[in-house]
């Protein structure tokens, strides 16, 4: 699905996606990776023109005991370009999410600003997450940040909810809902926002 300045990419098998942004163009890429079989996917956005801005919003939910290998690339080739990549993974059972986040800032990309963050929630003792941020910065006058976090549902949250007579499964659903909404609420187009949110809800209901 492609609307003006926003693109939704539903990944359920091996896939390579790349796009380029010319001068002054701003675009949001929304990707949902919720496969039932192991896959490898690559998403690459090249900011070719001055002041180009890219926002990558992604949710990964492996639906079975599978491996998901995903890489994103934020390629800054021009000055004053901005890219943000926010990714959330929900990992259950024996699944593996392996994520590589590449940020490349070229020699003529002064004033660029790049950000990358991968949050993972592990809902099983056997679930695994690997995150590899790779940053290559060839100009000093830039700002570049990356972050990673991984955690189960915190004990204090579980305790709080249980004292309010919620069951473990109910608590998980509420927490997962909030976890996903952090991404979906940032989608600027309401149609795609509802589509992604409802798909995630349908998947998490069955998990």
């Amino acid at each position, binding site marked *: 699905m492609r609307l003006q300045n926003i693109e939704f990419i539903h990944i359920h098998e091996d896939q390579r996606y790349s796009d380029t942004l010319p001068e002054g163009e701003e675009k949001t890429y929304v990707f949902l990776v919720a496969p039932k079989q192991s896959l490898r996917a690559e998403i690459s956005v090249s900011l070719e023109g001055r002041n180009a801005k890219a926002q990558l919003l992604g949710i990964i939910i492996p639906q079975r005991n599978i491996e998901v290998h995903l890489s994103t690339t934020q390629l800054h080739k021009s000055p004053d370009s901005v890219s943000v990549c926010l990714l959330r993974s929900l990992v259950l059972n024996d699944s593996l999410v392996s994520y590589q986040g590449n940020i490349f800032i070229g020699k003529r990309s002064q004033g660029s600003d790049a950000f990358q963050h991968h949050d993972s929630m592990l809902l099983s003792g056997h679930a695994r997450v690997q995150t590899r941020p790779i940053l290559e910065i060839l100009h000093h006058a830039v*700002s570049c940040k990356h972050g*990673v976090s991984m955690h189960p549902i915190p004990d204090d949250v579980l305790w709080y909810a249980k004292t309010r007579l919620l069951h473990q499964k109910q608590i998980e659903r509420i927490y997962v809902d909030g976890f996903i909404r952090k991404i979906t609420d940032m989608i600027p187009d309401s149609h795609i926002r509802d589509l992604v949110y409802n798909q995630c809800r349908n998947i998490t209901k069955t998990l």
Partner: protein
Amino acid sequence: MKPKKITPKAYAYGFHKEEQSVYKAQKGLNAAIIDEISNRKKEPLWMKQFRLKSFALYQKKQMPSWGPDLSGIDFANIYYYLKPTGGTVSKWKNLPKSILDTYERIGVPEAEKKFLSGVSAQYESEVVYKSIQKSLSKKGVVFLSMDDGLRKRPDIVKEYFGTVVPPGDNKFSALNSAVWSGGSFLYVPKNVKVDLPLQAYFRINAQNMGQFERTLIVADEGSFVHYVEGCTAPIYSTDSLHAAVVEILVKKGARVRYTTVQNWSTNVFNLVTKRAKVEEEGVMEWVDGNLGSKCTMKYPSVILTGRKARGEVLSIAYAGRGQIQDAGAKMIHMAPDTTSRIISKSICKDGGRTSYRGLVRIIPTATHASSHVQCDALILDGKSRSDTYPYMDIQSDDASIAHEAAVSKISDEQLFYLTSRGIPEEEAVSMVVNGFIEPIVKELPLEYAVELNRLIELQMEGSVG
């Protein structure tokens, strides 16, 4: 407004005094020199054997295959032991004039009067001055040079020496274990809180000198101590080597804070192994400021062995022309409910190179562990370089882990805002840099925070123009 170009001020502590010694070993290292060091110190047999075994390990161990280039160290051209005076004194006036003058220029006696519980001053290979407040001695606090600690409290030293940093840990810990001299031995008894910091001051004066101090701190149950160390050296055209080992044992419910303001001259290789072992509900905090040296490799570590133990590393590194600051931290979680935090800030300028190299390891038995790592780099020009090598090995399924890294320059907006309010550009740069390091500086005692800010400002001079 065109900013005025200012020439950077010279390193303030680069002066040197005429070398004086009561004994100086020949250059280079062999078993006979180690034997001689041990004999002169009248050490027990177990320590001499420990040294000789460590020397054998040192010869077998390879130089690190990673990190900065250390090929410039000429091990055969270093003096491994130099005894400057006849012994340790407890009154400044009893020191030889040239040594006293050195410490007065650095400001140690004045600092002792104002805000320290005790002071240890090491000159070349030996501690030449040691003092501690009588009230602390009465409470059972033992603060001695490591050599005196071995003589006066052999029971504690033998129990813990080399247990946190074994000689075989790396080539430089093996070297230190073979030739160690000086350093501090500190024992804080159960439930004793040492309110004011204890300070150790390390000075290399001689050319081609190697300083290998060894520090052992044992904080018994429920105790607290803040230990501060500072270091300077003269500027020579040849390189010196500083390879220290620091071992800390934090017992149940105890808290130790270890602060370093490292300001070696830019001809010193600073290769230090620092590690703490923390028991149940104990807290270990490393506050590490690395401003000087030619090349520093230092990764303060905390091994969290007891339930609810906590480790923290707050680190600042500055690398100017020709400097490499390869610093970081290691957190090893071995018990449930352990927590750790690493905050690393680095600044590089004039072609300097900073690296953050860190490890967080959570083993399967460390359930409900949590760790947060943040490393920020400020690069002030196009000639400088900053690298980040965070390594995380999480083997527990319920750990909470977060890692953040940021690299940036001083933005034009920040400079415009400050200069439009009449602040000269150079001062504006210093203000932004001091703001960048503020989360760590605020953890220092006031006097050290002021000193660190002043040092950073000195380094920033000449950054504009």
